[in-house]
Structure formats: C-alpha cells, structure tokens
C-alpha cells in the first residue's frame, strides 16, 4: 500500500470537518472521494495537497511522512474546482509556471520548457492555443489547461477537486473517459473529489464514500454497489442514481406521435 491515510482529523474553529479518516490505496490507484457537500472530502484533498493542515493523524505516501513535506515540495499536482488559472498569463505561461519557478540549478532550459509545454498541449489536445489567455477559453479547455499545468511538474500524485463540476453533461462525459485513459497511460496515483455517484463508480478503482467527516465505506465500485456498508451509502447511491435518470429524461427524443 503506497498511500496510507491514518486517523486524519481537522476542525475549522468549532466545526469538525474531518473526524478521523483512514484509508489505504496502492501506488497508481485511481481513487474517488464521494459524498455530499460538507462531508469533508475537499478538506481531505486539500490536506493531501498541503493547502490545509491536519490537526491530528498521519499520512504516508511512497515511504515519505507526507504531512511533514511542505506543500511546495510535495509535487502534488492540484487541479482546482474553478481551475485557478493565472488570469494574466497565456496558456503556455500557465503550463510552464511550475518549471519556471524552479531554482536555477534544477530549472530546465528555455527551449526545453517550450518543448515540454508543446508536449503537454498535445497531450491535453489544445495544440495551437498556447498564446490564448484563460478568459478566451471554454470551460472544458480551461479544465485541460489546469490539468496540463499540474502535469508539467511531473507530479507524484494528482489531486482533482470536482474536476467536472462546472462543465456541461456532454463535455463532462468526454473528459471523464479521457481522464481515465490519461491516468492509465501515466500511472500517477490520482485522487478526485466528486458528489456524482455515477462519476465515482464508473471512473475509479477505489471509491471512498464520505459523510459528515468520516468514511462510511471504501471499496471497489462493484463492492459498493453490491454491498453498501450502511444505510447512508445505500441511500446516497440510490438517490444520485434517481437524480441522474431524471436529469437525462429531457434529452431523450420525443415520440413523434405527440405532435
């Protein structure tokens, strides 16, 4: 087991966001943190990214005491829900950022950085858009820039906060498939946060269902579907399935006889 999260707890002033969360995942796993808003999934992700500090508990990753590594040295590629692209920089500059801020002795040459940026633009299928500004891109394109920027630092793990939350249904499906294939090609341990049960169960190797600061159940999508560990898990999966089927209805072709 390469990623071991052990009894991590976090409290915001009086409100407990995480009440002792533990799970383990093998190197290269694709893990979904699934739960309703306020269940602590984003807080857990931010702790793994070093953007928030845990009050209690330990995390080991790849043999490192992960929580004692400062955020800027973790090389955890973080993709934010609203992408958080640098608005005053071009797409190419955004992607190159992580390389440009390296200390001089480890920084690649200018030509090398340009080459890597081109490579990443190709990888996320945004060739030729390097000179655009984030405000000139669509939501799906911004999402892919954010991914390319996170991948540029050759991350040890990839952390995605509601990666498809702000996208419309069609783009969401496409990006989902693409992200899974990207993960299978790169093999980077990936953890993503979602409140969409379909997304979690379709995409991930491991799903951790969270509620009120705790993990209710962790397992493969098949296990969770077959044997929900608690009433909450059963209900949450059931409810999202209903919500999705209702949302899909209007897109079905209307029978001609109705006209």
């Amino acid at each position, binding site marked *: 087991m390469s990623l071991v999260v052990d009894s991590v707890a976090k409290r915001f002033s009086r409100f407990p966001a995480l009440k002792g969360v533990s799970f383990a995942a093998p190197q290269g796993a694709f893990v979904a943190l699934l739960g309703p808003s306020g269940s602590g999934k984003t807080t857990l992700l931010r702790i793994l*990214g*070093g*953007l928030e500090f845990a009050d209690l508990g330990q995390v080991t990753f790849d043999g490192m005491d992960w929580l004692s590594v400062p*955020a*800027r*040295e*973790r*090389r*955890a*590629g*973080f993709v*934010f829900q*609203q992408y*958080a*692209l*640098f*608005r*005053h920089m071009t797409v190419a500059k955004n992607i190159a*950022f*992580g390389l*440009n*801020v*390296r200390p001089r002795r480890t920084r690649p040459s200018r030509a090398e950085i340009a080459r890597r940026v081109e490579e990443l633009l190709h990888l996320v299928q945004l060739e030729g858009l390097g000179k655009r*500004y984030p*405000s000139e891109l669509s939501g799906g394109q911004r999402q892919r820039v954010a991914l390319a*920027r*996170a991948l*540029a*630092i050759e991350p040890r793990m990839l952390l995605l906060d509601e990666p498809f939350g702000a996208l419309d249904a069609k783009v969401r499906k496409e990006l989902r498939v693409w992200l899974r294939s990207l993960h299978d090609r790169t093999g980077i341990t990936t953890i993503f946060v979602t409140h969409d049960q379909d997304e979690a169960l379709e995409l991930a190797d491991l799903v951790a269902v969270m509620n009120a600061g705790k993990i209710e159940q962790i397992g493969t999508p098949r296990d969770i579907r077959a044997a929900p560990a608690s009433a909450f898990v059963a209900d949450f999966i059931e409810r999202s399935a209903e919500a999705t089927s209702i949302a899909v209805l209007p897109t079905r072709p209307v029978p001609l006889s109705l006209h």
Partner: protein
Amino acid sequence: MAALLPARRARGPIEDGPVTRAAFILIAVGFIVLFLLLPLITVFAQALSQGVNAALAAFDDPDARSAIRLTFLVAAIAVPLNVVFGVAAAWAVAKFDFPGKSMLVTLIDLPFSVSPVIAGLVYVLIFGLQGWLGPLLRDYNIKIIFALPGLVLATIFVTFPFVARELIPLMTDQGRDEEEAAVSLGASGWSTFRRVTLPNIKWGLLYGVLLCNARAMGEFGAVSVVSGHIRGLTNTMPLHVEVLYNDYQYVGAFAIASLLALLALVTLVVKSFLEWRYADEIAAVHRH
C-alpha cells in the same frame, strides 16, 4: 392599432419622470460647478490676475523653491513606505485568517476618521521636546519635530489607508486560489507574490499610489502642526501658500496654489487615461 396611438416612451421600472430626472441632474451639476469648478478657476484666475510674469515670479523666491523641493521629498519618502505597508496589510487581510483581523481593518481606517491636526499633535506629544521621547531624542541630538522626519511621519499617518483600502477589496475578491495553485506548483512565497499576486493587483496598486501621492503633496493640517513653519526649511507647498496669503502676497499664494492644483489635475488625468487605455486588461483581471 397600437401604432396609431401617440407614442409614449415606456418607462423602465426604476426610471423616474423627466422632471425628476432633470432636477437631479441640475442639482448634481450645480453642486459640481459651485463647489468644485468655480474655486479651481478662481485659483488660476487669481494667480494670473497681474499677468503671467507676476505669477512666475513667485517661483523665483528661494523659499518657494525650498517648499516645492520639500513637498516632493516628503512625498518621495512617504508614498513608497505606504505602498510597502499597504500591500503587506492588504495581503495579510485578504489572504490569511488570523485573530484580530477585523481590528486591523478598523485601525487602517483610523486616519480617515481622525482629524489631521490630532495626527500632528500626537507626534508632537511623542517626539516633541516636552514629549515622551523628547529628552531621549535630545540626548542623541535627533530632531524629529520641526524637521523632515516629523513631516514624513505626519504625512504617512494621513495617507496610511489609501493603498490598503484600494487593495483589500480587490484582493479579497480575487481569492486565494491562484496563490494556492502557485504554491502547489512549487513556487516560493516571494515568487508567488511577484509572479501571481502583484500582476493581478497592479492597477489597483497604481490608483492607490496616485491617490496617496496626491494627498501626500496636498496635506496641510497634520503637517502644519509638526512643521514649525520655518521658511525655506520646514514649509511644504500648502504651508507656503498659507504664509504668503497671510503676508498679503495674493499673487504668489495663488501661483503656488495653482501648481498644487495642477499636480492634482495631472494625477486625475493620468488615472483616467490609464483606465481608458487598459480597460480590457483591467476587466480581465477582475473577471473570474
């Protein structure tokens, strides 16, 4: 059928009748002309009342030159210091949570609510000969009150909020996401500030600096208390105007006042020009 009826423009839900509208416009324009435009014109008219040469002669006076030099010097010291403070304060308030934050925000506004004269007096009470630190400073032969350091201190106090006030809402609005992204990509604190934060706030910062500078050069009350009015030594432009006026040298007083007014006008023109020239970029930075 409706087309045959007399055309009556539909009123928007928040629009008032034409009479009300005209009245409001008249009141606004009237106030501006009476209280802003007329005095400004009077300043220039008085300065030129005995011809251009008489007005220019006022600038030949060594005391006047010293006052102009001193004003620029005080601004040149006070404005950069307030920029450093303002950026630091705004950064702290907008990007971090800490106990006493609302207290700090309130304190930043203090100079806006306190009379400038009191600001000057406070420094006299602290650094003056009879003040708390007076004896100590005298022993080391350091002069603060009735000297340049006092003028700078009083100016800093009065112009304290300009930069911070301009930046806090802007930086709060922009949130912490981009900084967090920068850190997770391996940027150091300084690098994050220089490459991410600063470019996003540069326009707000520029306005803050312009306003801060305008006030620094025009401040009268606080500076008056700590200056001691030593001609050719501790008189800034606004103080020199008062001295000349009290000496019945109206042309000279208004000539120096015209220079001050011109500096203010230039500030406004520069600000408007920048807003117009970089409208797209400013909008982009504010957009999410």
